[in-house]
């Protein structure tokens, strides 16, 4: 294990590092294999896969598999332990690998960049699943400046795409998730969000997918069904049923390419922040946001961030409170004073010609300024502030890692996401906030939350931090999120995506008409993946007969 002393020492000490100390609890002799697969058959399958991708890209040993564990796990590592990983370089290799997996009945779990750490990272739902790691498929196949799109493979991160556009002198903006190491394809098919005017990724950006089905068939969706179609990356629907949604948050196919529509750089950009001292301000703030978003007066993802999320990217908890449990009000007040932030902190931006920005700003100022205690800030007012700086980057699609700071709040932290979707309604927002915060405090954690209004809905993103090396704390957090899902469902709120540990539970919460939706998903699964090899358990969808 890497100790503090060893890190600080900074010299080549003679004592070897204990490579697996406390990190990887499954030894090679106890490798968890897929359900009905014998060690001999598994070895044969891996040999066949090595013949496809090369020996260097089939991983079965502990050092290489550590990266396929859930780094922020709340359960024992074996709960989501992969049996191995294979990393293809091309669509043809994906097809051939799926043929081998089908022949041997080996379940595979697809990842692109594997950086969605609050939801399970690069780990599979079912132990023993073989990872299909698409990170090596990392080509940016096309950038079309005229029609404002790019075509990318799954291994391309936001940072990759941004850097590429910068290098070629493009005037196109991307829209990225808050941690810039996330994948363009992975986030899109998980229906993630960003912060520019194109922040609803799947709604606003996706235009045409290439998907490999479990039998190896490759399909291009939308206009791509017609070979060489000139509007393939301009019009997403094609003719007939629109299929793309089936391949989001699902296990019906492996997405190997997609087109991402980009935003032309506007002639002007003014990020702004408004702080509110009262915790109850989320109610009038949300009421003010709704008409502004519906009318697109606020064009980008309107984000209301609670105090601790705002503070955690600049300070640590121990700088304000050394006790256990939730941060007390006295410490919260001092943070607000020191950092000049509010109990709620709203971020938005103006885009366009100066005349357009000048015309819309008074409308926003009037609406938000009517809320008690509102204070307005522009970039010049927040120079040197990490929180404003990274928000200003996100709202113009510049990837960065500052928001990962929410796990610097306490030592050796991890976090987990809970994301109920709420109508844009002030009373509902306040009710959600108070209930989640109360349950969180009762469980001994700090509330870390924000409300993001993409257009007509509001994502309540709650990401509590816990200590990774405290097993009891992990169990307590697991119990908390479990209770929050129940509580939300009782209030008729659904969760929009979830961690591996809760996929079955959340799927079961969509239970109307005796689980008709789940039964339909099951029919699709049986039809599209009859052998049942693709990502068993993804979003609570399992094959009829587990591979």
């Amino acid at each position, binding site marked *: 294990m890497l100790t503090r002393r060893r890190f600080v020492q900074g010299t080549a000490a003679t004592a070897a590092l204990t490579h697996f100390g406390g990190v990887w609890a499954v030894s090679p002799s106890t490798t968890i294999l897929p359900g009905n697969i014998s060690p001999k058959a598994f070895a044969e399958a891996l040999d066949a896969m090595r013949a496809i991708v090369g020996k260097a890209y089939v991983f079965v040993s502990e*050092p290489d598999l550590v990266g396929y564990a859930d780094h922020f796990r709340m359960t024992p590592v074996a709960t989501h332990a992969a049996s191995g*990983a294979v990393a293809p*370089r091309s669509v043809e290799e994906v097809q051939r690998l799926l043929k081998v997996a089908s022949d041997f009945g080996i379940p595979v779990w697809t990842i692109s960049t594997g950086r969605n750490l609050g939801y399970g990272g690069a780990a599979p739902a079912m132990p023993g699943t073989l990872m299909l790691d698409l990170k090596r498929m990392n080509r*940016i196949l*096309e*950038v079309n400046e005229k029609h404002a799109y790019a075509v990318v493979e799954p291994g391309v991160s936001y940072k990759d795409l941004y850097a590429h556009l910068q290098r070629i002198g493009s005037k196109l903006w991307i829209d990225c998730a808050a941690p810039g190491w996330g994948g363009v394809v992975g986030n899109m098919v998980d229906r993630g969000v960003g912060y520019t005017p194109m922040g609803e990724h799947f709604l606003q950006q996706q235009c045409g997918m290439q998907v490999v089905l479990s039998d190896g068939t490759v399909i291009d969706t939308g206009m791509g069904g017609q070979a060489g179609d000139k509007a393939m990356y301009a019009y997403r629907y094609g003719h007939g049923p629109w299929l793309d949604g089936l391949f989001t948050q699902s296990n019906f196919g492996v997405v190997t390419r997609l087109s991402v529509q980009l935003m032309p750089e506007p002639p002007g950009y003014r990020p702004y922040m408004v702080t509110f001292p009262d915790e109850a301000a989320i109610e009038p703030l949300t009421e003010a946001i709704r008409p502004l978003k519906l009318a697109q007066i606020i064009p980008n993802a309107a984000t209301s961030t609670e105090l601790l999320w705002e503070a955690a990217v600049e*300070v640590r908890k121990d700088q304000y409170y050394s006790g256990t449990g939730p941060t007390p009000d006295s410490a919260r007040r001092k943070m607000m004073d020191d950092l000049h932030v509010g109990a709620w902190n709203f971020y938005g931006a103006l885009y366009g010609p100066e005349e357009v920005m000048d015309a819309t700003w008074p409308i926003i100022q009037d609406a938000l300024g009517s809320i008690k205690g509102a204070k307005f800030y522009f970039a010049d007012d927040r120079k040197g502030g990490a929180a404003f700086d990274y928000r200003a980057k996100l709202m113009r699609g510049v990837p960065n890692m500052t928001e990962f700071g929410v796990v610097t709040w306490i030592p050796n932290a991890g976090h987990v996401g809970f994301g109920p979707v709420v109508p844009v309604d002030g009373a509902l927002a306040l009710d959600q906030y108070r209930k989640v915060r109360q349950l969180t405090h009762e469980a001994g954690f700090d509330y870390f939350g924000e409300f993001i209004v993409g257009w007509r809905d509001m994502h309540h993103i709650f990401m509590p931090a816990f200590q990774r090396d405290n097993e009891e704390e992990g169990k307590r957090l697991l119990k908390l999120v479990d209770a929050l899902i129940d509580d939300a469902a009782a209030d008729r709120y659904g969760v929009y995506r979830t961690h591996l540990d809760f996929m079955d539970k959340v799927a079961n919460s969509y239970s109307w008409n005796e689980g008709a939706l789940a039964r339909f998903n099951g029919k699709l699964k049986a039809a599209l993946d009859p052998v049942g090899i693709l990502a068993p358990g993804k979003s609570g969808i399992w094959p009829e007969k587990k591979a």
Partner: protein
Amino acid sequence: MRPPATRRLALLAALAGLSLSACSKEGRETSNGASVPREMSGKQLYDHWCADCHNPGPGHPGTLRLAGDMGEENSVLLQKQMDPEVVKYAVRNGFQMMPPFRPTEITDEELARLTDYLVKKQ
């Protein structure tokens, strides 16, 4: 463990300044904007994978956390004497909040170059 022959090849390639990998994290461009693989130096690897968390100053979560755990004087990787084994261990196994990086993200050859840069600062 990967086959010894592969490791020997990897070592030879690293010594010869070559790469067995064809990753395109930093791409060369063609006329239509498509990226084509290009090898990254140790500094480029640091800038791509590490800088956003570990550079000095506000907004870098790795630096903020290390300041709390290890002291301000040990919080900036580029300003601290680094043990190569510590770098390699942390990248492959993770270190506290920092997750591990898979060989498909940072190859063994790239990790050697990155480590060399962090140790020598050049």
